[in-house]
């Protein structure tokens, strides 16, 4: 069963010598072609999440390992293969202004893929397609088409990029921080449209963010990255409500809750991440900041331990006897072939309709 998109032992290194930074290290994960999934990749700056997005989109050749699209190496595929890739894998980016060419009206953003992918045989049908996509994300064509990017609000521009992705009809959308540059009151609308695309059109999502709260809102699974490695992975409800990795615990605990009666636990004094490149051969990436660091943590990097069904943590704290290690392959975390945990094991989650 060939996955739609797959990273195998993906590594990305920037710079050389003193300035050498490892952005991603030995990452293996995949996204199924037929069963839609909604996965969040959570991390802060330096975690490698943006590098991962660029690698998966064909914008950054891997330093080691490879990215496969339907079994073919993405970075050595020919023009036809690349076109097929672009039809099936699309993206939504962080900056809702930068993605627009200021020289054209916003129609250009929608008309270009229609033209390049031959999505509509005539101009009227193209126009019709554009209008339908806009309405599907809650935008009024009269108020958006024919305008220049600076005439629309950030929320409208971002929703328009979602309409663009929808119009192409991909199987997978990689959304890189889609709401972080949008006003708080407009975020819910954009997030809701992403979730609806997933449910109504069976589109898989890779939602990349530093904001655990929005990740919690929209995704089903979450992968927590820290300095290029996977710290924790699993069902989003469990990882956020009962984080196991000390880094995830720190992240979750540092989220400012919008309730004055629920303050941050206590004052923390965690050292800042060091500038020096950590000793990757011999240490856990989080060792220099971990409140529960043990001597073992500076001797070798921990593997991913499976702690529950659909859950794994890369931390020696969970090295219990007979604990299965998962060799860094995130695919193996989820026992079922799709990346969606069993709905029967519900945790008060909303109803999910089975894919047709």
């Amino acid at each position: 069963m060939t996955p739609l998109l797959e990273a195998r032992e993906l590594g990305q290194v920037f710079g050389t010598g003193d300035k050498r930074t490892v952005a991603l290290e030995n990452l293996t994960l995949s996204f199924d072609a037929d069963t839609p999934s909604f996965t969040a990749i959570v991390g802060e700056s330096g975690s490698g999440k943006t590098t991962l997005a660029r690698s998966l989109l064909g914008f950054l050749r891997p330093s080691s390992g490879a990215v496969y699209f339907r079994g073919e190496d993405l970075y050595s595929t020919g023009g036809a293969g690349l076109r097929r890739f672009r039809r099936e894998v699309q993206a939504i980016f962080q900056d809702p202004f930068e993605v627009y060419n200021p020289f054209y009206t916003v129609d250009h953003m929608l008309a270009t893929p229609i033209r390049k992918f031959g999505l509509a045989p005539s101009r009227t049908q193209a126009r019709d397609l554009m209008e339908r996509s806009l309405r599907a994300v809650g935008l009024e064509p009269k108020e958006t088409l024919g305008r220049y990017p600076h005439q629309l609000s950030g929320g409208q521009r971002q929703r328009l990029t979602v309409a663009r992705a929808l119009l192409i009809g991909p199987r997978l959308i990689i959304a890189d921080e889609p709401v972080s540059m949008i006003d708080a009151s407009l975020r819910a609308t954009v997030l809701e449209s992403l979730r609806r695309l997933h449910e109504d059109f069976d589109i898989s999502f890779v939602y990349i963010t530093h904001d655990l709260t929005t990740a919690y809102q929209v995704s089903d699974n979450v992968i927590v990255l820290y300095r290029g490695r996977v710290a924790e992975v699993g069902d989003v409800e469990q990882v956020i409500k009962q984080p196991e990795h000390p880094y995830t615990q720190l992240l979750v605990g540092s989220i400012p809750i919008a309730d004055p009666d629920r303050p941050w636990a206590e004052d923390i004094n965690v050292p800042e991440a060091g500038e020096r490149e950590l000793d990757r051969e011999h240490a856990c990436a989080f060792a220099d900041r971990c409140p529960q660091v043990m001597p073992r943590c500076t001797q070798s990097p921990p593997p991913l331990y499976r702690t529950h069904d659909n859950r794994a943590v890369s931390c020696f704290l969970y090295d219990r006897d007979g604990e299965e290690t998962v060799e860094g392959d995130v695919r193996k975390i989820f026992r079922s072939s799709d990346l969606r945990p069993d709905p029967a094991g519900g945790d008060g989650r909303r109803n999910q309709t089975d894919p047709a």
Partner: protein
Amino acid sequence: MTAPAATEPVLQVTDLAVEYRMRHGTVRAVNGVSFDIQPGERLGLAGESGSGKSTAAMAIMGLIRSPGRVTQGSVVLNGRDVTRLEAEQMRRIRLADMAMIPQGAMNSLNPVRRVRTHFADSIRAHSARVGDREVRRRMVELLGMVDLGEEVADLYPLELSGGMKQRVCIALSICLQPRVIIADEPTSALDVVMQRQVMQTLRAVQETLGAAVLLIGHDMGLLAQFVDRLGVMYEGKLVELGPVRSVFREPLHPYTQVLIRSLPSLDERDPVRAAKIAQSTRVPSAVNAVMTEARPGHWVAVEEAVSR
């Protein structure tokens, strides 16, 4: 300086208005905003892009430049209206009475000067004849207040992380023991862990100095965690102002309701509901609204001539 009376606010903003003259017309970025800050109080000013909160902050700090202008109102600090001051007088006030941490402060640290030079400049800007040893002593003391070690003094800004740079900015701003600290989005570029540490530091510093804080931001969670009273700005006006618990528990203005109730939270996974709130709540224009006290200490802007 004589100590002010106990109930005298340390900062009084009255009917402040700021206009920008653009090519196609004049825009009132701040349209008649009034509030007080009591000594030692933490007041938050929330709003999104276009609300005018940053412009109001800049007006209070005396940083409005052409094509912007303060067209009406006053900002009284220590008995003086800072909007009427000349640049030189403003400069003196800035360091001594009012500490400023404008947006992007950490990026305006001079990259070719060490941290200790920044401190020396700040400390000596107010009183030129401070000896080297005194400067050093004061600097180490300030760094300690923001939880930074003495070794930071000899580093260059680019050797510091974002959180450390921001704490250096905080330390620089308080070097003359101000009575008010104004921080405009002090943590917007920081990750969530650094953010928490910087805010903790700010609170510790503020409590030690007994200074008041005006915190401007758009992150309602952050504001909820930090402030005592919260003001919400929309379209250049204050639409709600009250004790933070009161505002969060019972937001009275539709805009505040949208801000608070459509926030993604960790309590339930329902983006649909949040989106519906955001889309269905009708937020009236604030242009003709007037602040009325709807609950004790809790004000909300209502349309004039509308009786509730």
